[in-house]
């Protein structure tokens, strides 16, 4: 089966997030970057699915030229080909258009992807919609929040599992399909040395699709106000137990 994974280069979470001087983006000069946690699981899942059913994994990202780093990381995990969509904006409609156009080009050359995986939402912007917009444009089924994927051997449909507050739901979708996955789907592997060496030299394809801006425009980013408060230290070690139980009683939970 042919699997496409769409990943995003995001700032590695650290302590406080700094904002650029013009106030419109995250100041990344002192930050490292990583693949979003949901998407890292998507890459792992794709590599496992292809190991089981045979096929090919393509990994794609829309971002700055530096996102090559994340594509190569996905290749080192076992993906077979990488595509960089040069596209700077976080605008979810424009991003979805850029991805859709690129996917159409790739599919016109080599046939449809049976499964396209997205992260449920990006770790930095969290618009909760790019994967769904792409799926709608391609007229394919899509379910979000996925934490389990089973492909039937005949590869005609896929079972998609997700959790909600009440339990687990299982969806069946005909292939080709799209799934937006969440961390917890699997435990992503640590790339091997051989994988890293292979990924370092692998050729990447770069495309520059034209897009029009969508209707959501960032004006500025702000730090949320930090709640000013004192931490009440109830005590040290086992001696604090009485004070803790007093607190539990006061909160009405004992």
């Amino acid at each position, binding site marked *: 089966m042919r699997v496409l994974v769409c990943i995003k280069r995001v700032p590695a979470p650290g302590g406080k997030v700094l904002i650029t001087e013009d106030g419109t983006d995250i100041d990344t000069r002192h930050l490292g970057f990583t693949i979003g946690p949901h998407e890292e699981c998507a890459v792992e899942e794709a590599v496992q699915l292809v190991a089981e059913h045979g096929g090919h994994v393509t990994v794609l990202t829309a971002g700055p030229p530096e996102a090559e780093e994340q594509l190569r990381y996905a290749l080192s995990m076992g993906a077979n080909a990488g595509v960089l969509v040069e596209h700077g904006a976080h605008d979810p409609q424009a991003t979805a258009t850029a991805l859709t156009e690129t996917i159409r080009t790739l599919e016109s050359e080599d046939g449809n992807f049976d499964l396209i995986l997205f992260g449920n939402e990006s770790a930095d912007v969290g618009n909760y919609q790019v994967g769904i917009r792409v799926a709608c444009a391609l007229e394919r089924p899509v379910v979000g929040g996925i934490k389990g994927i089973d492909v039937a051997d005949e590869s005609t449909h896929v079972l998609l599992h997700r959790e909600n507050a009440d339990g687990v739901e299982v969806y069946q979708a005909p292939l080709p399909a799209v799934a937006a996955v969440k961390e917890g789907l699997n435990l992503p592997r640590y790339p091997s040395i051989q994988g890293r060496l292979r990924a370092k030299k692998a050729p990447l394809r770069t495309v520059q699709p034209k897009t029009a801006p969508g209707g959501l425009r960032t004006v500025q980013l702000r730090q949320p106000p930090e709640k000013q408060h004192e931490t009440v*230290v109830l005590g040290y070690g086992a001696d604090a137990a009485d004070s803790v139980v007093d607190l539990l009683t006061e909160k009405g939970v004992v």
Partner: protein
Amino acid sequence: MLLVLVEDDSGAVSGGSQEALTLAHGLATDLNVPVHAAAFGTRGEFAATLGAYGVSTLHLLEGPFADAYSPECWGAALAELVRHIGAIGVIAAASEWGNEVLAHASARTGEAFASNCVTVDAGQQWSLTRVRGGGMLLEDAELAGAVKFVSLTPGAVEPAELPIPQQITTDSFVPESTDTLVHSTIVDRKSRGAGVALSTARVVVSGGRGVGSAEGFESLEELAELLGGAVGCSRVATNSGWRPHSDQVGLTGTKIAADLYIACGISGATQHWVGCMGAKSILAINTDPEAPLVTRADYAVIGDVHQVLPAILERARARKQVQGVA
């Protein structure tokens, strides 16, 4: 008019939807337009509650598709209703369901969607603030387009009924686009059965690196059971294989809204903090008095969870026994 997508919570209008209705009423007053509501299936019993929030018309989306949730069909149905009634704005609670259905509907109408908003001001464009990275940053943004889709972060607006309820009419809308749509179908649903759900638990007892092992969580489970709460954990505990991922509190796990969060041996990186900052109060138990979660907590015990927890369990059980006798 503005349209509010109403979420069903065990047969009632969900709390998040009541917040969305309150926001919509304020925006509609500024724009001088009525508020309509949309619900899936036969939800006529919602009418009284919706009238109290100022809704003048309830549209029930009906048809074979409405019996079982299919994100594609429900999104397409909502998009069709939006076009049919000429809504200029669509508002829902930013639950997983609300965000999913609005993403589908906005994609199908070709309009923009601002998810996880905390404030919205209506005008030609809508000026809004949304939360990013689960609350690490706030984004001020402008939303343009013929139909504006917005989801509202839970807890951002205090729900308020009108002093005099609005007269409400109910009609049904049967969409056509759902007949031919390629879509997923729900084929199985497993209830979690016994146990308290992490996202709605009043008390969450959570463990991280300091718990040290899968066995170390036994005392957390005992305390959670004693307090009628749920057990949570940090990303370290999940990635070490001590707990299932469904227990993870954090940006990529569950965001909790407990009255009390007891964090045992969790340092509290940003990824974890955004999952637990919705708790009303936080008690951190940690050997490190400078750990971020200790400095952000309301209460702290400085010490090793392996010594502190058994002592708390012993005292709490004794207290409970005394209360039982009294």
